[in-house]
């Protein structure tokens, strides 16, 4: 493969950072933290999320209560740094602002994004209306909500080309398969490039005569069409054909964009950071993701491992329950009760120790996978979420410095 793994130290000069990982591992919080760190460094940053719970905006203090109903307009960049600056420690206070750093947060809504994209690609109002009013297009519009992968990529590409930002941080959509995301641009491009378009576009519209179908597709193609006709009802094929006809203006441009997004993901200045958390499942998925990226010719920069238990040294070895019981009994507690209490304490200590042993093993294998120069940052588990901007800044700074080891809050 042409591309080798990105070095962690090059993160500081990245133009796009994609945070990937399975859901629930703290991806959004990590995205917010990293974006904040770039802004403090004086860069113009935009962080894009599609998080339905607006966790990013919450993490950045834009929206403090879920139930408040405060409307955050999707697909619009919200400047958040001025609101955050005073929450930072004095040493960092106003640093980014002084150096021209800005931090914008944006939440993607795929449906309105799709409409905006059609409007952007089709300057002609009549054509635009034809597409926007197409029955198939309208019927499928709500389903975009369930597969936001392409729309997220498309929006990032648009933002990258705008030149308005130095760094883009993308909090990837929660998807069951990371591969879908990587493929989104490529799939769309090959689909548009494919004969399928011409094929559907040549299907006779009601009242018109079919032309050149057999020549275009050969026997296999007409058979495929006959199968599709029987599957979906022959009368729906013209509907689909009309959809493609009215989309014909858009499609070549859409294809160019799809190819551009694919190129953007492969650029040297694009970094992939895999976010994960302890647990066999998360570990397996993080490794799978690392492997997937590699097989696409993109080297992951490394890992951020959230919620790692930080155990006091005393708990690394088993607690001696009889000894604890004796100390308690010596303090005047009845022997029976002292033993029961000591049993409780020992059980709690054992439980945390077992989790710790698994976590340490987990970290070792990820460090190995990240390799020399790769990123492997572990974030100690905190009781409750990180809501504190100062802590976010510390987390972001540690990742940005490409450090190996533990975040110290």
């Amino acid at each position, binding site marked *: 493969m042409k591309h080798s793994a990105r070095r962690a130290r090059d993160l500081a000069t990245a133009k796009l950072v994609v945070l990937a990982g399975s859901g629930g*591992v703290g991806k959004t919080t990590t995205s917010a933290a990293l974006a904040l760190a770039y802004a403090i460094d004086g860069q113009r940053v935009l962080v894009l999320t599609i998080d339905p719970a607006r966790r990013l905006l919450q993490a950045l203090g834009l929206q403090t209560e879920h139930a408040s109903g405060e409307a955050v307009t999707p697909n619009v960049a919200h400047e958040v740094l001025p609101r955050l600056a005073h929450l930072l420690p004095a040493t960092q206070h106003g640093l980014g602002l002084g150096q021209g750093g800005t931090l914008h947060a944006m939440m993607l809504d795929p449906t309105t994004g799709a409409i905006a994209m059609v409007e952007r690609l089709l300057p002609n109002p009549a054509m635009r209306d034809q597409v926007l009013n197409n029955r198939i297009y*309208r019927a499928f519009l709500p389903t975009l909500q369930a597969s936001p992968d392409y729309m997220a990529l498309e929006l990032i590409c648009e933002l990258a080309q705008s030149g308005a930002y130095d760094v883009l941080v993308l909090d990837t959509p929660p998807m*069951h398969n990371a591969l879908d995301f990587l493929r989104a641009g490529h799939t769309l491009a090959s*689909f548009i490039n494919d004969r399928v378009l011409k094929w559907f576009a040549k299907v006779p519209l009601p009242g018109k005569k079919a032309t050149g179908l057999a020549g275009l597709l050969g026997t296999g193609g007409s058979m*495929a069409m006959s199968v599709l006709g029987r599957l979906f*009802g022959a009368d729906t094929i013209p509907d689909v054909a009309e959809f493609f006809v009215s989309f014909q203006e858009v499609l070549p441009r859409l294809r160019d964009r799809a190819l551009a997004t694919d190129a953007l993901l492969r650029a040297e200045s694009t970094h992939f950071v895999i976010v994960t958390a302890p647990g066999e499942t998360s570990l397996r998925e993080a490794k799978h993701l690392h492997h997937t990226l590699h097989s696409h010719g993109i080297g992951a920069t490394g890992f951020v491992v959230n919620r790692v238990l930080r155990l006091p040294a005393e708990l690394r070895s088993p607690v001696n329950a009889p000894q604890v019981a004796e100390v308690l009994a010596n303090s005047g*507690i009845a022997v029976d009760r002292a033993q029961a209490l000591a049993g409780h304490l020992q059980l709690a200590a054992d*439980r945390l120790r*077992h*989790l710790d042993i698994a976590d340490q093993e987990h970290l070792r294998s990820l460090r190995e996978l990240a390799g020399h120069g790769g990123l492997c940052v572990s974030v100690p588990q905190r009781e409750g979420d990180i809501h504190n901007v100062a802590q976010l800044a510390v987390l972001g700074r540690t990742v940005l410095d490409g450090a190996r080891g533990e975040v110290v809050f």
Partner: protein
Amino acid sequence: MQQSANGAQIIIHASPKLGQGLRHRPPVAILRFTVILPPMVAPLSGPNSPQQLPQSVICADLLRKEVLFVTGKGGVGKSTIAQAFARQAAQAGKRVLLVELEAVSRAGPLLGVRHPGPQPQRAASNLDLMALDVMDSLRYFAVQQLKLETLVNLALRNKAVESFFQAVPAIKPILVLYQVWHMMQVHGPRGDKRWDLAICDLPTSGFVQGMYQIPRTLQQAFRVGPVHNYATGMRAMLADPGRTGLVLVTLPEEMPVVETLELQAILQREHGVQPAALILNSVVPAGIAPDDAVMIEQLTAEPADHAMRASLWAAQLLAGRRQRALDLLPQLVAAAHGRVLQVPCLFRRELPLAQIDQIAAQLATDLAVAPA
């Protein structure tokens, strides 16, 4: 209270004190309760103060359905819960089909199925495992429709057709839904159904929203024809709480709980769907009593017994987590009309089969102490 006399009985057993006694009853008695419970009942204990129903009652009700969809935010353990339900149902004598949609199979390694695929494979007694991909489901749909496998394979080998189906947004939920729906109607040589219960381990909450949205989309996009008819059939199946149940899994932490409640509200508002159960996964079991912890803390304030202080720290950390879980419980109980199942934390980063079976047993076991 507009419940029948039988319904009223259930309310009595849902009360904490009597619930305590219930767990020692033989299974026969529990079964008798569950039979009288109508599927997907409205709040059983009045709209203002829904109480948590006994786990055995909720679990038995879930296992009586034809299809269970298990979902939740990533990392909350939905695959674990899906596997546990599958084991529980199989052990109760149901013939179970566990359906996975992940790129990396989780149940495969657990159940010793090396290459799970679109053909159901026997994983254990009464338990089959199937792993699906969008093209598998499309092929299945086409073969069922046309009955001509060769023709279908030829058509689907067309690269244009494949890229079309890979690119159509959210087509996967509908094809998977169709396949599961159809497979559950398949009858064996003696006219009996092949499976009693399908348990689907669904990827993300976005998938679930798509699943409920798409039959409607297809009805609009295809006004007549076979797709329209199937979309209508699937919508009917999804809307029948006696046949299908949605199980939402969450962790006892603020963010996952808030997101679960948001998803529940969206599904209710947009699609009129009420989850058959909410699962509060990984609840820390009761440990040291708060008073005792305070007492030990005072005792250890002076002497520098590091081991004891550290273990006290561990005990208090776990007690804090348990308390947060209990604090979040009432919101979930209210949202799910009492249909909340608690699963204890097992303090393991990996869950081999023995632990899955332990969770399976817990799902059907009433809690000793209901939360205040």
